């Protein structure tokens, strides 16, 4: 599927942010900061023509896999999956409520489109390796994408997986690190520095790319460059801003795991909608709607 124009992707990213924030506010619980920082990454994957998938057939064996290893960022993924038609978009508003499929962290087998149960940080890249190896064994050509938090990369398992993927030359595997420089208790650099990050992945035999994680065109180009890479997995270090898109959440780690109040939500929605009255049913949805008409790659 060809990529739509950049302006349309930017508009979609805004829509996803709106969904995520409204759901978190309705639940009065959740993680705004790390949802917002990943908006362009998720947009590029799901709406930029990168992922080959079929929302009507989530188990299609040749689908590309997407694993949100930093599971607490799942509201932005639910927004993308809902807009893509995996489930009714309104279901997102039941986030974190009892009897809802919109669990606080991703749950495999419960929510269509969710490939792995995450939320205990550090595990997604290993699962991605499993998919990549299975694809190789079966002669299938799907790709596997894993989004990691930067704080998450303090877990030893991430580096066991990095070592393994490099040695196995898994070029169908692509890790994207949401490099927003904050974790739960504060700045990554203050708590347990990961630097030099590029050199770490490179020394584990990965192709490493760095991009502005809010420049959706740049993210898209990096993802496409990763597709062309042979003999090595690719790690995209996406430089992002935690809470991106909402002035009082940007660079403010208070919103790592705290929902906005009703009032804060209104301010946030106004900012995201460029001063217009908030509400996704309003103006800014054309981007997504237009895309939904295009059928994704049909399953065999």
């Amino acid at each position, binding site marked *: 599927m060809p990529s739509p124009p950049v302006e349309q992707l930017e508009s979609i990213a805004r829509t996803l942010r709106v969904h995520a924030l409204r759901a978190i506010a309705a639940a009065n619980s959740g993680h705004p900061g790390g949802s917002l920082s990943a908006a362009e990454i998720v947009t590029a994957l799901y709406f930029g023509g990168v992922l080959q998938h079929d929302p009507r057939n989530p188990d299609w064996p040749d689908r590309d896999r997407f694993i949100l290893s930093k599971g607490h960022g799942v509201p932005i993924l639910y927004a993308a999956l809902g807009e893509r038609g995996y489930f009714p978009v309104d279901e997102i508003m039941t986030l*974190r*409520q009892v*009897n809802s499929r919109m669990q606080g962290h991703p749950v495999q087998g419960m929510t269509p489109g969710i490939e792995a149960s995450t939320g205990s940080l550090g595990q997604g890249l290993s699962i991605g390796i499993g998919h990549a190896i299975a694809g190789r064994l079966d002669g299938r050509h799907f790709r596997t994408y894993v989004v990691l938090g930067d704080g998450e990369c303090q877990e030893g398992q991430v580096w066991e997986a990095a070592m393994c993927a490099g040695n196995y030359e898994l070029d169908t595997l692509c890790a994207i690190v949401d490099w927003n420089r904050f974790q739960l208790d504060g700045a990554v650099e203050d708590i347990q520095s990961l630097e030099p990050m590029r050199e770490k992945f490179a020394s584990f035999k990965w192709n490493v790319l760095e991009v502005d994680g809010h420049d959706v065109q740049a993210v898209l180009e990096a993802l496409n460059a990763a597709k062309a890479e042979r003999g090595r997995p690719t790690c995209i270090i996406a430089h992002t801003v935690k809470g991106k898109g909402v002035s009082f959440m940007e660079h403010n780690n208070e919103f790592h795991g705290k929902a906005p109040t009703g009032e804060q939500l209104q301010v946030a929605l106004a900012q995201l909608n460029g001063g217009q009255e908030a509400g996704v049913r309003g103006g800014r949805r054309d981007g997504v709607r237009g895309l939904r008409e295009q059928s994704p790659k049909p399953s065999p």
Partner: protein
Amino acid sequence: MLSTRYTPRIGRATREAYGDALLELGRKNRDVVAIDADLAKSTFSWTFGKHFPERFFNIGIQEANMVGIASGLASSGKIPFISSFAAFALCKGFDQLRMGAAYPHLNVKVAGSHGGISIGEDGVSQQSVEDVALACALPGFIVCIPADEVSMTAAVHAAAAHRGPVYLRLGRPKAAIVHDAPLDFVFGRAITVRDGDALTIVANGLLVAQALMAAERLADRGISVRVLDMHTVKPIDVDALTRASRETGAFVVAEEHLHHGGLGSVVAATLAQTVPAPIAFVNLGDRYAESGKPDDLLRKYGMTADAIVTAAESVVRQR
């Protein structure tokens, strides 16, 4: 012992009491060192950390490493208190706890916060429902689940005074106060919070307050209930259980945990070898829960005063 009618008085969360007690310990004992794995503000180890930055290490998101470091600290004479969510400290650090704390019987204290499903909305990945089973599977560990701020404070001091590994489960929500301070608290000795002779409810953590509420309602129906706060699952209080079995003849065991390997299993095994009696179990069963408001979840998964009353009524008929 509470003899008057029990009206729940909400106190601090046990995790908050943990932080305050740890700070007090830190003032008294320079060998106390605390480590956390990027949850210091949630576990309240930060209460200690802000006062003793030189003895506090927020090492980032690496629970297994944290346990290993504690093992080294304890081997070199320190008293490490390590904290994270119970789900991560126990599950991710289990082999390190086995080899680095239990087997060498080191002076490592583990505080697992956000025990049970009453953490609510975050859902299964953060809900610890197997920590008691895991901790009990570590020979030599004391395993303790305090019910309120009063017993948590006592438990932290008891943990520091005890030479050997200790696991404390901390809770997220504010907890009803069920004990009066100062509390006569000893690991392995149950606290009778209400006396009765027709049934014994054995509970720990948040379920102690629920047990007291259930006991009142059962009393209104003419069933006289004893409530034991079995804060220590290991070593279990064999005397209190055998006495209760002889004097009341039936049990409900209530806990925020899976059915297998928790308080229920330990009580059943103990009674089977001493004075057998019918037992009903109030726990999560053999399944995971989900996201939701804590009260919604406790109701849906049957860990409330209501559930205890129902279990009690069926078990007294079996006496």
